[in-house]
């Protein structure tokens, strides 16, 4: 047995240094779409040398210190629901740090409405805990059943109710993290501070490349008294986007604002629409007077701009089925379908152009694609995102799948960047999007590299994620 393994066993105990192949295989990959397809046509994962399961911050610190001294690559592993290979092992010397045991509930503060827990707590479990006390997190990624609190912070995630409640950076109040050399750092919980740059942002989106997050404190909200929901049909995505812009301009923040194109609507909502239309979904919640007032504003703007009511039912359907994709996600690859989601963001000025141009280019340039749709699902006063959904039938071959995959990704990223948008709205960078990071950040990219050097001088922290090797 290698020396490193022995040393790890001395830290966390023999039981929690797992060498079993099936476990190492499981923790060698995440839900990177390309692999979900490729693994059925001959791709094989590189396994880490061990999966360690520390039970507390102290053990994490010792493990990191050890690996840092010996130059052993480390990958923090959360729920494994990342979709960009962020948690994928590519070096067989890797030690995977499984955070699942660091999942203690630490404190629920019902006065200041914040809750603190270990980073390995599944968001689903945390939601259940606060629900029991009459609160909700307000953060609902589609991967609700899979993702951990630490993973969500590490990838700068956002949820389905983000237009109203905000994204993870709006929820995160404070945290504890362990740096590469084992140093433990904490950021206290305060409503706001003007004492230099906000250090929380060094950890939000750090994807295991800077530090291991071990504890988080997030906001929680009272369970809303009422909901107002309504769907509207519009002729085109451009028209729908304009209506959302006008709604956001009023300053109201409905919890959910969505706009789906026809290909996406046809199956679930076809019964409520005419062919080729797009569908707007609005959902406001909170105090009755407020939700209803927001509803009235939305209704007025929608109708004044040519939208036609499609009733409440599409929202009920959306709500019931909103996370089905998480169950189905792994099934496609086995059936020979390459499925992925690609999310970009941009200002109102260009977002409709980005949608139209991307769809058109995919449609002309990649014949293997059989499905390509888009929706807007997270809106802001100055812009919104487009979440593209891809279905393709590449020839059953590892390289061919990669070719088709890169062709679509290439188009999506290129169009977003050439319009001055961002290539990534909420899934992070992982090991897939790193190649475009310099283009994305332009002159400020140098700072990203400097940060990496400061946090991880020995280059052991999730190498290849966030920053290209």
């Amino acid at each position, binding site marked *: 047995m290698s020396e490193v393994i022995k040393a790890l066993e001395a830290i966390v105990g023999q039981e929690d240094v797992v060498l079993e192949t*099936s476990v190492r295989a499981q923790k060698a990959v995440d839900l990177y779409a390309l692999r979900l397809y490729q693994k059925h046509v001959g791709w094989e994962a590189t396994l880490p040398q061990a999966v360690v399961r520390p039970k507390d911050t102290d053990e994490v610190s010792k493990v990191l210190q050890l690996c840092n001294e010996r130059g052993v690559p480390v990958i923090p592993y959360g729920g494994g629901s990342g979709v960009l290979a962020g948690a994928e092992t590519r070096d067989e010397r890797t030690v995977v740090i499984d955070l699942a045991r660091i999942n203690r509930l630490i404190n629920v503060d019902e006065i200041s409405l914040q809750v603190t827990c270990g980073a390995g707590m599944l968001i689903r479990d945390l939601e259940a805990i606060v629900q029991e006390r009459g609160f909700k997190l307000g953060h609902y990624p589609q991967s609700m059943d899979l993702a951990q609190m630490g993973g969500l912070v590490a990838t700068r995630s956002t949820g389905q109710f983000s237009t109203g409640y905000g994204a993870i950076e709006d929820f995160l109040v404070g945290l504890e993290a362990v740096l590469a050399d084992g140093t433990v750092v904490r950021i206290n919980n305060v409503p706001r501070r003007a004492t230099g740059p906000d250090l929380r942002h060094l950890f939000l989106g750090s994807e295991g490349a800077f530090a291991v997050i071990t504890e988080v404190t997030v906001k929680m909200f009272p369970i809303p008294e009422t909901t107002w929901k309504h769907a509207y049909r519009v002729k085109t995505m451009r028209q729908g986007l304009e209506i959302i812009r006008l709604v956001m301009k009023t300053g109201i923040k409905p919890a959910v604002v969505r706009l789906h194109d026809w290909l996406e609507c046809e199956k679930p909502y*076809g019964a409520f629409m005419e*062919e080729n239309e797009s569908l707007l979904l609005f959902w406001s919640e909170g105090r009755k007077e407020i939700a209803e007032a927001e509803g009235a504003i939305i209704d007025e703007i929608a109708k004044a701009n040519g939208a036609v009511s499609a009733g409440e039912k599409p929202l009920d*359907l959306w709500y019931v089925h909103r996370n089905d994709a998480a169950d189905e996600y*792994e*099934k496609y690859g086995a059936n020979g379908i390459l499925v992925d989601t690609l999310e970009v963001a941009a200002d109102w000025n260009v977002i409709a152009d980005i949608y139209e141009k991307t769809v058109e280019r995919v449609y002309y340039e990649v014949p293997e694609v*059989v499905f390509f749709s888009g929706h807007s699902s997270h809106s802001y006063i100055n812009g919104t995102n487009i979440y593209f959904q891809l279905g393709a039938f590449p020839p059953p071959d590892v390289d061919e799948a990669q070719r088709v995959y890169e062709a679509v990704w290439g188009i999506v990223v290129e169009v977003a960047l050439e319009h001055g948008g961002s290539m990534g709205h909420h899934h992070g960078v992982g090991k897939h999007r790193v190649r475009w990071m310099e283009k994305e950040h332009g002159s400020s990219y140098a700072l990203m590299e400097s940060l990496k050097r400061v946090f991880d001088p020995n280059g052991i922290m999730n190498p290849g994620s966030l920053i290209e090797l």
Partner: protein
Amino acid sequence: MRIVTCVKQVPDERNMATDPVTGSLMRDTAGSIPNPDDACALAMARATSESLNGQVQSLDAITMGPRQSRSSLRQALSYGFDNAYQLTDSRFAGSDVLTTSHALALAIEKTGGAELVFCGEKSADGDTGQVPAELSVLLGAAFLPFVTEIIDADRDAITVRSKMDDVEYVIESSLPAVIQVKAGAVKSAPASFRDRIEALKKPIAVLSAEDLSSEMLFGYRHSPTRVRKMIAPVRTRVPSVYSGDDALTQFRQILEESENTDDLSADSPRLRSYARQVRETDTCCDQVPDEPVAVYVEAHKKGFQNGLELLSRLQACGAKTIYAVTLVPGDHASSDESMERVLSETVGEELYLSLLRSVDALTIMEASRAAVTTEECAYRLSRYLEKRRVGLCLLSATDHGRTVGPLVAGTLKTGITADVTDLRYVSDQWEQVRPAYGGQVFATIVTPEHRPVMATVRPRIFAVDLHDDGRGVVAVERAQDMENRRTKILSMKTCERETTIEEAKRLLILGGAITTEEERDRLIAFAKRHELEWGVTRALVQGYLAPHGRQIGVSGLSVAPNLAILVGVSGSVQTMSGLRRAEKIVAINRDEGAPVFDNVDIAFIGQWQDYIESLS
């Protein structure tokens, strides 16, 4: 030449079944998708058109349905079809098999007729598979059921392979012909995104009722069958709980019992149990009218077994005059007596005599050839039913019965109900109960004004319980000339049935508590010893302990075994929803509070190893 494919939109089952908030069906809001079986029809039509090399002038698709539901036509257009027609009019609403077939036949004729018409095997919502056959009758075309392959086609004739009731036929037919494509027979590559977008831009021609005919014999008003009521049965499982030594004995018993039940039917056990439940709420039959009732019996052993079930039900309903009729292969008997003897030998004397004793008359019709076509069956049976003024005619819902039945109903312009699970005479009507929407509801159908009332009945629904009160007269009808013979069987051979996990009657399901290869292999060995198929939950697939092809649940397979044994399964909705159709669910789990126990029939609390060991 023109080729037309008939396609349909069906409610999206995913939306229909799964409203966990209210637990109710969401049919109204389900949204619609192209009927899955129709994709095979489209693909086969396109391939046939290509093989006819320039002889096909137009390859078209037709659908009948509400205006919004066009995705099936768009699908056809994206496959390169030339024209798409949509029959849409409120006057088509509520059409049954006959009126639907009538509208489609008129539409095909009005838009230029067709030499070849392709249809899917059945629609996912109606689930009857009767339209293709009736359509062929109304078009005056040959009918080719359950076609798996087009062997050869030209301007005047077509040769196909067809698979019915585990027999494979090669059939030659004149044109025009209606081809019912067997589900899954062809796999078509999905249209590219570009073709889908282009298809969205092509025109769709809309036809109203007036465009088809001035008589307007469409819709519910002109349909021979009526829906009297709909019942949604509830299936809740309340587990019997066992632990300790008692439990081991009980477990052994369950396993042994299930090994010994010899289930002849490929039918879903869930349907049988639902049907039973609906029947329990049954009111007694009213006085049955005098008109004779008949059962069409297939001339082989299983056919007679099925026939006895139908006759038992008719006796129980108090039918006064009961006939049976069968068609035997031609050319092998010189005298009437020897025909009877050959039949009795084919089906076995005991079965033959029990049938004979329970009917007033058995008519043995002789076919003109040794290989009997469904066309000839339908022809002879139609004439028989007319001649004897039969009021009700039952057939078994085998592939054969499901083909002959609608051909006869189309010929006699009467109503037919498919896959009936119960029959009774109430308030002056024969009430036929059948599952709809994949068995989620049961519809009670009547045929008020047309005779005979026709139905195909699921095998193994009714128990055999006969009184010997028939007169048992045997009548022999010799082969007759058939005007206008369109189809000919060139060859036939019996094929093996292969069972898959989805068809398995007994299943062992491994859950997340199984975490090592050793544990898994031990359970697989156990399954092999006891002739159980095995499946897994998602956790094992994710843990690389089993291939996805064995996963049961929402993102895997949905199964309907007679017995499912769950080992170390926690009981997530994801898994359990794949087991909704199982007859008996047994779970072994050491955690008394495991959610799995809310959803099973028998709960064993303890270590699975103890149960497995107790049997080896």
